[in-house]
């Protein structure tokens, strides 16, 4: 019996098919990995006017012309970071800056924790871009202090700490510098 080899299949159009699939995926998908700034809103039940001592609160206002005022003084965007860092840390135990209290923190032991709260208020016509820019500066202040403490205690940045899965250590740092940014309702003028 003669040995008949099967006819060859023409693979010339394989590339075309693959290209078709490729183009399909290029069209229906997006490459952007979504990222954002995570915040937690205050729940409705929480009393709006909790009693917070004046020295423990940093009032950041962004007005309708996108100008920034912190505790009654007009400041530029680049100053926000320094003011916030100084406020959260209160390195010299200034009587006008937040009070601190001793707390037992897992891993780190007895530490002073500041009672700081940052309140950011905006006008109705504040631009979203400026609002986010201010939020970003405040977050940068927190992250800087967390990094600093983390480097000091564990010889790595806060980000690295989280990546290596040292959750207890990361939580200890978060307890010392909790990110308390209150997004209060915009002020409604009452006159």
């Amino acid at each position: 019996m003669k040995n008949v080899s099967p006819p060859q299949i023409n693979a010339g159009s394989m590339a075309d098919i693959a290209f078709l699939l490729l183009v399909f995926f290029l069209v229906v998908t997006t490459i952007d990995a979504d990222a954002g700034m995570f915040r937690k809103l205050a729940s409705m039940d929480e009393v709006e006017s909790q009693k917070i001592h004046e020295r423990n609160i940093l009032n950041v206002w962004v007005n309708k012309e996108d100008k920034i005022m912190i505790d009654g003084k007009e400041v530029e965007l680049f100053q926000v970071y320094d003011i916030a860092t100084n406020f959260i840390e209160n390195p010299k135990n200034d009587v006008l800056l937040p009070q601190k209290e001793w707390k037992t923190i897992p891993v780190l032991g007895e530490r002073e924790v500041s009672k700081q709260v940052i309140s950011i208020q905006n006008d109705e016509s504040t631009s979203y871009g400026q609002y986010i820019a201010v939020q970003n500066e405040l977050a940068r202040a927190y992250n800087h202090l967390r990094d600093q403490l983390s480097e000091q205690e564990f010889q790595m940045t806060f980000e690295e700490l989280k990546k290596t899965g040292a959750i207890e250590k990361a939580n200890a740092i978060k307890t010392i510098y909790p990110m308390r940014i209150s997004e209060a309702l915009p002020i409604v003028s009452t006159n």
Partner: protein
Amino acid sequence: MASKFKKDDGKGDPAISTASLPDIVFMLLFFFMVTTVMREVDLKVNVVVPSATEIQKFKNKSLVTYIYIGSPTEKKLGTSSRIQLGDAYAEVKDVGAYIETRRGEHDEAEVPLLVTAFKVDRETKMGIVTEVKQELRKVSALKISYSTVEGLASN
């Protein structure tokens, strides 16, 4: 002299094998399949999200509900900011109901993990954003995220 520049003897170049072309294209295809995600919706509003440096990536995209706010892409609808939920324009009062339907699509155990992401144009006025935030508080959807791109803060 003439013999130095030989004329084409008619044989031509040997054909380049294209047998590996499909393999290359498949490789590209798999690269794109792995690195990209499906487009969620067709945008009906113009959104250029602000840039920021202190950002985190979403851990689980299926838990994210997007709210788009920006000027409408259709010129005849004017330039004032509009909200887009899913594939359609919506009003502030629709936000609560939309969040509830999104919750219905998930298990109860996942509901507390749901995040609402604001994709808001940087030129938008905060008024509309604040109203939406109030609506979210009413339905206790308290976890939010301001979508940003990585980069130096603008404005």
